[in-house]
């Protein structure tokens, strides 16, 4: 389908309701662009349709919406200037990091200005004595670790998109990663932020010290998905890297038994640095792609990693091996070297890509469940898979209950996509039903916005909305995300 501006649009447009754009803003588009070009350097404002198009989506590419304009500021002052301007003129704002969000966190609005952090990518300060680093919000997650790894340090939260995702986005989503069982999530690894309010006020929150007095603004802003303001600089904790790490693989004949093994490991007081679970479809997909030697007859497989000196690694791996042995494993393989560890991880690390090769597209879900509920949940998911006629492979952070079902579908088939979405929603509702929650690390974004009613009562949602309003009474900041649109007067046309 051709649009008036000569660009093409797919068979079906955005699949999710967005608040109606403000007609007065759309009407003033040219004037707004001209004003933005006065506030920022020429190359920092994008207004032509062709150049706006790649910004219409993020890691959840099924949803697309062209923005009004895109700005790429380089400094906190420029960010503040744009926010101040937008606030003064009632223009909505959508913050954007690397655009790797799997929940549509960076999906624009037709009448919104996107503020992208990608050019704010400098490391400002590294302090090993006090163990912190101050970085601009556009520094990638791995970029922080790279800056300090030469001196034996690292930044712990490691979402699997860490190569590309930016720390500003990590803060907004409270990102996790495989390391978080032992080291915590983003919120547990921050010391301070430079925060810009919708009015364009720049506020320093926290600093280089632990535990600020007063209300925990740092804690509230982390994970707030751009609802409360924008973050331009972040002070993170950096940790000394352990002496080494090594992995092992344990394959089991049933999901139940694998779950029992996980319980026994934790019950024995061992907290591995990673405890990854893969189900049979996932094992097969990974093996086909990576040829890592995964056992194809296993119903469930665990990859477990421990840290410490070589002797400590041996001690821990042997403890875990003894525990796993009680559950009649199909195979147990302890890596004896770094190369062998890499080989064990190779399949798991390529899991998403592997699924992408056996299916035209996939939806990566993100719900959390009490770990004891895994066998029941996986059984129900496999029933849903038969019902919807769509394949699914499951990756599970066994230590912390975060489940990533990968639902296979074909984006060129509208029906397939609709089914995939329904399947995903059913899984998330099941997660809430068994005592878990809708999202463990990807955030609500637009993807799970309309499922919030499954987890919260209407008065709880009203309370959260009111807290958001305390920061942003006009609902200019990312208004289409997190909270269902129904009944929100601030979003009515």
């Amino acid at each position: 389908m051709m649009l008036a501006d000569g660009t093409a649009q797919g068979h079906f447009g955005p699949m999710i309701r967005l608040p109606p754009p403000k007609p007065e803003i759309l009407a003033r588009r040219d004037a707004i662009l001209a004003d933005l070009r006065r506030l920022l350097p020429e190359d920092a404002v994008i207004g032509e349709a062709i150049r706006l198009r790649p910004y219409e989506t993020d890691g959840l590419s099924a949803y697309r919406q062209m923005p009004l304009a895109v700005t790429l500021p380089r400094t906190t002052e420029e960010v503040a200037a744009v926010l101040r301007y937008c606030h003064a003129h009632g223009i909505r704002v959508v913050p954007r990091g690397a655009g790797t969000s799997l929940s549509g966190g960076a999906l624009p609005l037709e009448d919104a200005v996107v503020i992208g952090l990608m050019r704010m990518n400098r490391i400002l300060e590294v302090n090993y004595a006090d163990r912190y680093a101050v970085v601009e919000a556009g520094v990638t997650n791995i970029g922080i670790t790279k800056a300090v790894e030469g001196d034996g340090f690292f930044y712990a939260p490691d979402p699997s998109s860490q190569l590309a995702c930016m720390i500003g986005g990590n803060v907004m989503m409270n990102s996790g990663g495989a390391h978080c069982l032992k080291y915590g999530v983003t919120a547990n690894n921050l010391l301070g932020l430079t925060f810009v309010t919708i009015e364009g006020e720049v506020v320093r929150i926290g600093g280089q010290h632990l535990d600020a007095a007063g209300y925990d603004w740092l804690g509230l802003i982390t994970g707030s998905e751009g609802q409360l303001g924008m973050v331009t600089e972040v002070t993170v904790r950096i940790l000394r890297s352990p002496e080494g790490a090594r992995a092992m693989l344990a394959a089991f004949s049933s999901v139940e038994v694998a779950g029992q093994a996980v319980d026994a490991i934790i019950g024995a007081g061992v907290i591995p640095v990673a405890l990854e679970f893969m189900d049979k479809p996932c094992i097969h997909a990974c093996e086909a792609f990576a040829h890592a030697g995964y056992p194809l007859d296993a119903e469930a497989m665990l990859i477990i990693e421990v840290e410490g000196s070589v002797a400590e690694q041996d001690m821990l791996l042997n403890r875990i091996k003894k525990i796993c042995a009680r559950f009649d494993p199909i195979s147990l393989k302890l890596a004896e070297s770094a190369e062998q560890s890499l080989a064990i991880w190779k399949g798991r690390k390529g899991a998403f890509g592997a699924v992408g090769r056996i299916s035209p597209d996939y939806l990566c879900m993100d719900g959390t469940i009490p770990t004891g509920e895994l066998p029941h949940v996986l059984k129900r998911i496999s029933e849903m898979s038969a019902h919807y006629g769509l394949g699914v492979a499951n990756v599970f952070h066994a230590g912390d209950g975060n489940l990533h079902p990968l639902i296979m579908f074909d984006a060129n088939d509208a029906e397939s996509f609709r089914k995939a979405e329904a399947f995903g929603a059913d899984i998330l509702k099941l997660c809430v039903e068994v005592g878990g929650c809708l999202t463990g690390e990807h955030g609500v974004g637009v993807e799970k916005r309309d499922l919030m009613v499954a987890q919260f009562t209407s008065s709880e949602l009203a309370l959260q909305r009111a807290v958001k309003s305390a920061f942003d009474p006009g609902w200019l900041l990312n208004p289409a995300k997190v909270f269902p649109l129904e009944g929100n007067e601030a979003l009515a046309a």
Partner: protein
Amino acid sequence: MQTSFTAEQLRDPDTAEANKILRTCVHCGMCTATCPTFLLLGDELDSPRGRIYLIKDMLESGRPASEQEARHVDRCLSCLSCMTTCPSGVHYMHLVDHARRHIEETYVRPWPERALRAVLARVLPRPGLFRLSLRAAALARPLARLIRGRGTTAQRLRAMLSLAPATLPPRSPMQEVALHPAEGTRRGRVALLTGCAQKVLDPTINEATIRLLTRMGIEVVVPRGQGCCGALTHHMGRHDPAMAAARANLQAWGAEIEGQGLDAIVINASGCGTTVKDYGFMFREEPEAALAAKVSSLTMDVTEVLERFDYRPSREAPGLTVAYHSACSLQHGQKITTLPKELLARAGFAVKEPTEPHICCGSAGTYNLLQPGIAQALRARKLDNISRLDADLIAAGNIGCMTQLSGDALPVVHTVELLDWMAGGPKPAKLPA
């Protein structure tokens, strides 16, 4: 990703191929992390993911390419770092090559640019013409400061003049000899692609290759009719001249394969190696499909050949530290990452790699001529990273990189020159005495 080509559009095999590639992309954005232009410019449009999206839009709409699309695709280095990073196996190279062709065929560039590109496409692949133009450039060099202005054309002209070497190496007859017999027992027979620009800029690369291979007992042929591999014109989107150049090579090599047979087609300019290894794809719908597939399967980088025939040094290590510069075409295009380092270490050198080894030096074929601003920024970044290694020299496997990185503190040589030196050849003249 979802695509929306019409059935009509998909009847064209190139479009069908583009659709297949676009479908494998899941828009995850990992590629942005390792893209040199995204690193420098911080704009989604200058990242592989953004370019994929622009290209998708451009091809689906069927409309002629516009200035915006040309600009952002032109800025792509084709370093293929994104392909190394992509978890989904998107064949970005084939997609961007197709897009370049579409742009070349449907977008009318401003005339100074058209003229410049036409000159480059005509001159660079022809050693005789290239040599003449370099002589002219050497003469014109002092006049570079007379080229005023910050406009693109002025920048490009200045860049061209500054890249032209001050002195040209003398012609090398050795490169023209058709057959170089093996020393001692013949263990194998290979064809050597002597190249085009490389023959003029630095004949010692071919000389060192021939010496080393023949010394190792390998007969080296330089078939008549062989010439430019077509990469230059191919990357400019000029499909027909590229195919013509490739076809000439296919015929030359075909004759040798049918004749006395070849164990390998050796390429010592990795930028060419990537293209020749892609001949099988480029000719998939052509009558020469089978021959092209055969040729691609026989093609090896010189380091692969040396490994295959068990390269060994024959003299003591000179106690030098080499900063190994991994050319994009070698590490990303051909997935040859550790082999050159292993060979250099085997030869007795201490080998170090700079940080950000996956980031392009900015040479990228004609990129350093057509996108001087970005190319210079990348050059400075690469040389800065190398300077921290405390090395004695830089080694690379591609003439483009060598030219780009020359003129700074360290001498730049080809990997094969060092390997030849350690196995009975002369010390490279570029190294200090």
